[in-house]
C-alpha cells in the first residue's frame, strides 16, 4: 500500500488493524485486518452498512474503544510516528490536538449542565494553555467560524437552547479548537434534516480547505459521499471490499457489493425504475465463516468464494478491490 502512494503525503497509515470484542464466552472480530491511509488535505469517505465495523475501526485508531474490546494487531502511523503502543496518557495528548472527532448524535455529545462556551473554554485552557479570558474570546471566534449567529450571547447559553444543527456546529467548533491535523467525522449529519445537512456539509468542506486538514468521513449515505469526499473505502463485515477515488467507485465500481449498493438506491434524477435490493442481510460476526464475507449475498458467488478470502487486485494507482471475479473481464457489468 505504502509503495503506491508517496509516503511523504500520507498523514495516517493504518496497517493490518484487527479489533475484537470479548463477551466472556466468545470472541467476535469486528475489524478484520484493515489497511488504509489518509493523505494530507483529503476527505476520505468510509462507507458501509450498520455492523460493518466502520465506527469501531476509527475508535480503535483513537484508542477510545469500550473495555470489552481489544485491538489485537496492527500498526497505526500518524505523521511518521507509530502511535499504536502509546500509553493511555500519551494517546489522550494526541486526541484533540492531532486528531479530533465529531459524533453522530449532537444531542448527547454535549454536557447539558455546562454552557456551550464552557465546553470550548475548558478545551482551550487545558490543551492550548490559554487563560480563561483569552479562551472565552477565542471561543466566540470559533463559534463565529462555524456560523453560529450572535456568538457573543450564544457562548453563555446551555445546550438545550440550541437546535440539533447548531449543536453539531458547536461540536465542530470543539473539534477544530486545537487545529487538528485529522478530523474524524462519524455520521455527523445522519441525525439532521436535509436542509441542515447541506449547511453542515458546506461548512465542513470550507473549514477543511481553510485549515488544510485531512478528514475521515464515515457515512452510510452514498449521496453524502459523492458530495464531499475525494476518495472512498467500501467496508463490509469488518473488511475493506473496495477502495478508490470517488469517480472510480461511482463510475467504474469493481466489487459486486459496491455495485449492488449503488443499484439499491433510488435516483432523484432520471427514470423511475424498480429497485434492485441486495438479497439477505449482513452476516453475523459471531460465527465467521471461511471465504469472502459477501459470498452469501453475492449473485456471482462461486464455490471458491465460500472457501477462501480473495486477495486484493489493483486496477489503478488508487483503486483496489477484493474479489475473485474482477480482472477476468467485464462480464460483471449488467
Amino acid at each position, binding site marked *: 500500500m505504502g509503495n503506491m502512494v508517496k509516503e511523504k503525503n500520507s498523514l495516517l497509515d493504518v496497517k493490518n488493524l484487527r479489533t475484537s470484542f470479548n463477551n466472556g464466552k466468545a470472541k467476535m472480530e469486528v475489524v478484520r485486518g484493515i489497511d488504509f491511509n489518509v493523505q494530507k488535505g483529503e476527505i476520505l469517505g468510509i462507507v458501509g452498512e450498520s455492523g460493518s465495523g466502520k465506527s469501531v475501526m476509527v475508535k480503535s485508531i483513537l484508542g477510545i474503544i469500550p473495555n470489552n474490546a481489544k485491538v489485537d494487531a496492527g500498526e497505526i502511523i500518524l505523521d511518521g510516528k507509530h502511535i499504536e503502543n502509546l500509553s493511555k496518557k500519551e494517546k489522550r495528548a494526541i486526541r484533540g490536538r492531532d486528531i479530533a472527532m465529531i459524533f453522530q448524535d449532537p444531542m448527547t455529545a454535549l454536557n447539558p449542565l455546562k454552557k456551550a462556551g464552557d465546553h470550548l473554554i475548558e478545551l482551550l485552557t487545558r490543551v492550548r494553555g490559554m487563560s480563561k479570558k483569552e479562551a472565552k474570546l477565542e471561543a466566540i471566534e470559533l463559534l463565529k467560524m462555524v456560523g453560529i449567529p450572535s456568538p457573543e450571547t450564544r457562548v453563555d447559553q446551555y445546550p438545550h437552547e440550541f437546535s440539533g444543527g447548531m449543536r453539531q456546529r458547536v461540536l465542530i467548533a470543539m473539534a477544530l479548537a486545537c487545529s487538528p491535523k485529522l478530523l474524524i467525522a462519524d455520521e455527523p449529519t445522519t441525525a439532521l434534516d436535509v436542509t441542515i445537512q447541506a449547511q453542515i456539509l458546506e461548512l465542513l468542506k470550507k473549514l477543511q480547505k481553510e485549515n488544510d486538514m485531512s478528514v475521515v468521513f464515515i457515512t*452510510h449515505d452514498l449521496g453524502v459521499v459523492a458530495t464531499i469526499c475525494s476518495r472512498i473505502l467500501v467496508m463490509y463485515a469488518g473488511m475493506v471490499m473496495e477502495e478508490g477515488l470517488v469517480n472510480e467507485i461511482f463510475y467504474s465500481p469493481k466489487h459486486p457489493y459496491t455495485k449492488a449498493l449503488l443499484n439499491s438506491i433510488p435516483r432523484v434524477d432520471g427514470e423511475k425504475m424498480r429497485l434492485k435490493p*441486495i438479497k439477505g442481510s449482513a452476516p453475523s460476526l459471531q460465527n465467521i465463516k471461511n471465504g469472502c464475507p459477501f459470498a452469501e449475498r453475492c449473485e456471482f458467488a462461486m464455490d471458491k468464494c465460500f472457501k477462501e478470502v480473495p486477495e486484493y487486485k489493483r486496477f489503478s494507482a488508487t483503486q483496489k478491490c477484493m474479489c475473485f471475479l474482477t480482472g477476468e473481464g467485464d462480464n460483471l457489468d449488467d
Partner: protein
Amino acid sequence: MTETKEKLIEVNNLKKYFPLKTSLFSKNKQVVKAVDDVSFHIFKGETFGLVGESGCGKSTLGRTLNRLYDPTSGEIQFDGKDIANLNNKELQPYRKRMQMIFQDPYSSLNPYMNVEEIIDEPLEIHTTLLKSERKEVITDILEKVGLKKEDMEKFPHEFSGGQRQRIGIARALAINPEFIICDEAISALDVSIQAQVINMLEDLQSEMKLTYLFVAHDLSMVRHISDRIGVMYLGKIVEISKSDELYHKPLHPYTQALLSAIPIPDPIKAQNSKREIITGELPSPIEMETGCRFRSRCPFAKPICAEVDPQMKQVDGEHFVACHLY
C-alpha cells in the same frame, strides 16, 4: 395508477393543536399548531407521499388521519364517511380498514410475544375467525412478506431490523386493510434492506389493492414510491403535485430548497450542481407569526408574505401550491 380516481381519503381543513403545559393561573394558553388547516385527498390504490423536515407535523397528520389523535377541528372523510368525530366504538369498523406501519422495528413489536401472537392480535380483535383459521391466515401472510412458517414460534429479538419490519408489515396486513399509513417505515433500515422492503410494499400494493400514505423525510425514496406528493412545512401543506412533476418543476421556494439539499449519489453531478442552500432553521411552532410561515427563510419574500397567509392555488392539472409568487 388509478383507473377510477375514486377518493378513499378526503381531508378538509384538518387541525390538530397540542396545548402546552402552562401554570394554573396563566391567562393565555399556548398551543403548538402541529397540523394547521390542511386539506388534501388520496385516491384509491395510489401512494401519497408526505415529506418535510422533522417538526413539520407530517407524523401528527398521519396519526390524526387514523384517529390515534383526536383532531381539534376539520373533516376526515374515509370512503365517503366523516370519521373525525366518531367515538371509539363507532370507529371500530374503520380501524379494521386502516392500519399503520411504524418507523422503529425495535420498539413497535412487543418483545414478550412471539411472531404468531403479534400477528394474531389484530385478527382476534377485528375478525370472528376461529383459532385454527387465524393460524392459516398468519401462515399465508408470513409467506407474503418473505418470512417462513417456522418463524411463527420465534420472538422479535431473534430477527434483524429488516425482518422485524416485515413482521410489522405482516401485522398491518393480516386483517386485509385498504389503507396503510407507513410512518417512516424504512428510515431505520440499511440501504440494501430498504430496497427489499420498498419492493415488497410495491408488490403487496398491487396484489392486495392497497392505498398508502407514505410519510418520510428521505425525498429520493418518497419520489420512488409515490404517485403524488405533499410537501409540509410547519403544520401546512405548501405544495401538492404528481411526484415526477414535483421533482422536475418544484414551485414553492421551500420545495425547491428541499430538493436541492438532497445529496446526489453521482459525484460529477454533485460537484456541478449549484445548490441553493437555505439558511436558518425551522422557526418555533409555538410563536407563530402572521403571514407565510416560510418567509423568514425564503429568498423571494415580498411584503405581502408578512401579512397574508397564502392559500392553496391550483397551478395546472394536479399541481397545487400555497405561495404568493404564483
